[in-house]
């Protein structure tokens, strides 16, 4: 436990409509890249949201440790300050709040210090260039009128600017064209390189993983982690699908 960054112990999670996750265990060490796969409705996003502290999801059992601290009951902003980040599957639109000012405010909150404007602007410009984002997006209202691809790039931009210790990417590649996937993937690589950040990548798609060195792959079925493997598991699932795991899970329940 001492060398783990994130440790999830016997985590069970429910929403108002019912139980979703059952006794999930997961350990992520600094700099590791984990991939979470599973059929639709398995609870992948629930896990991501619960780790980030979304109040819609209630922890009914188990614990979450981050950097040695029990954060199971911690508020979302405190988790972010501790070094967690999540790229949202559907980033929210906030009219009247510019992307730049959002990132600047977030940085200020996280560091507890005023942001040095010139340095910040330069870094923002460079990072946007890396992500093939038009600089005009910095002044635009957060996600308002952004295309699906621009929204996802804006999420990766935030990740690069905030440089968290651990980032959850919740279907960051879904609905993106090939070029956008390549750009996002480049951004993830950069994050990995710059800050040796750990990753939990929730995805359906192997394409985004092509240029990343995956350490572990987990398969989630009906709220339970049914198997964990290496990078090769991604390839296997891509070829064979989840059939085998769904059947196994059904048998285990009998």
């Amino acid at each position: 436990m001492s060398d783990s960054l994130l440790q999830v112990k016997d985590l069970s999670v429910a929403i108002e409509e019912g139980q979703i996750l059952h006794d999930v265990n997961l350990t992520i060490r600094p700099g590791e890249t984990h991939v979470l796969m599973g059929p639709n409705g398995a609870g992948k996003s629930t896990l991501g949201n619960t780790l980030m502290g979304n109040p819609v999801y209630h922890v009914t059992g188990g614990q979450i440790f981050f950097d040695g601290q029990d954060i199971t009951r911690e508020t979302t902003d405190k988790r972010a300050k501790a070094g967690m980040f999540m790229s949202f599957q559907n980033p929210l639109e906030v009219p009247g709040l510019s992307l730049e000012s959002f990132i600047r405010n977030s940085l200020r909150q996280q560091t507890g210090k005023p942001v040095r404007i010139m340095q910040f602007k330069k870094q923002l410009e460079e990072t946007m260039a890396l992500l093939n984002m038009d600089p005009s997006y910095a002044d635009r209202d957060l996600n308002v009128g952004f295309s699906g691809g621009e929204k996802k790039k804006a999420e990766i931009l935030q990740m690069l600017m905030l440089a968290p210790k651990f980032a959850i990417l919740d279907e960051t590649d879904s609905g993106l064209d090939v070029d956008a996937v390549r750009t996002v993937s480049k951004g993830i690589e950069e994050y990995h390189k710059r800050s040796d950040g750990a990753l939990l990548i929730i995805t359906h798609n192997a394409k985004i993983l092509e240029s990343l060195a995956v350490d572990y792959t987990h398969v989630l079925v009906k709220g339970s982690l049914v198997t964990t493997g290496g990078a090769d598991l991604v390839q296997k699932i891509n070829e064979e699908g989840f059939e085998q795991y769904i059947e196994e899970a059904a048998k285990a329940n009998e």
Partner: protein
Amino acid sequence: MSESVANSGVHFDPAIDNSKDDINAYLEGTDRSMYDFRNEETDFYKVQSGLTREIIDQISEEKNDPEWMHEFRLKSLDLYNKMQVPNWGPPIDGLNMDDIVTYVRPNTKMQGSWEEVPEEIKSAFDKLGIPKAEHEFLAGVGAQYDSELVYHNLQDFVGKQGVVYSDLESALHNEYADMVREYFMKLVPPTDHKFAALHGAVWSGGSFVYVPKGVHVDMPLQSYFRLNAKGAGQFEHTLIIVDEGADLHFIEGCSAPKWNVANLHAGCVELFVKKGARLRYSTIENWSKNMYNLNTKRALVEEGGRMEWVSGSFGSHVSYLYPTTILKGNDSDVEYTGITFSGKGQNLDTGCRMVHIGENTSSLVTTKSLSKDGGIGTFRSAIEVMPTAKSSKSSVDCQTLMLDDISRSDTVPVMDIKTNNCDIGHEAKIGRISDEAVFYLMSRGIPENEARAMIVSGFANPISKELPLEYAAEMNNLIKLEMEGSMS
């Protein structure tokens, strides 16, 4: 019946008082209006007991009014005593007319002491970063305030361009006296409503601005610097005339919660925009939460003129505020941008009225309203297009953000269109702060209260970006404070 008579404090002949049965017998068979009339009469008596011709005479004498103004006040007083309080908006029966009467009585010591100023007002000053020197003045307990010097500098500066900027009292006695007489309360006559009549009778303080033909005033004039006139923030009168082809930005009010012993504000703003002129009138009002804000603002726009309102309404217990623009000249236009924040215990009835008279006139209304902690916000828009106003356009966009489930917000659009040849649009939207959006902002390290404040500031942003930077910053601070509920 006899109880209500006793409570009214009116002295009746004991002989009548004792024959209670006789009174009841007398009332039987009479209609309801008879009873109502008696109540009115007691109200009338009360007012008479306070606000009398003698008091008006004294005000006039103290202010050294010209004779016409003295007469104007007396006529207004008569009207005031005859007129009814409005009965269609938020209730104003908590308004204590006796206090107001006391206040307008000259030579009354109305100033309290700093110790009497409510604690939340004092702490709000600190939170808004208002310099200590201004605290006492804003709290209505300091007679002097160092703004005088700033004001005179500003006056000298624009004076070089031929712009007249003074208090209204002085203008009554200098070379602009005739101009004041020509325009004073012509747009908002004392006959308009009871509080306009009251204003006509007891007005005090306020600004007079005249911008000569073709003059573009380079910097905004800010009345903030001359609020220390006696009676300012109570019955002040603003009279602005922007002559042909001239251009002015006038900023009135400030974000500090002004505290008055008497809780009525019945100010009046009259704006005259001449041919081809432009006037931008920006105001941020933040009244203390015991205040009844019954302000009347009106603009008259001549041919090719342009009127721009930027209006932020915060504070007060009850507000009635509907700036009116009369687009009299052809090709004149108006833009109204406003925001209202109704918090706990507040009932803010705001909106605007546009009267299209000239051909090819246009009005554009963008408003935002916020309600929180049970606050009630009502937005009324009245668009009137006269038969003469051919090819006119009007667009109203009203957005509301409810910050909880116990607050209330209503939109009341009224349109009176008397020509076929015009283009009218209205859009109203009511929304809430989504929990998902709050979670999103929090996931970047922003605490919940800040996240909510950021969403609200974002909502208000289209308004604040119309304000000069320092006012926009103050407004954002105000929104933050309102969100924390620390000013209620």
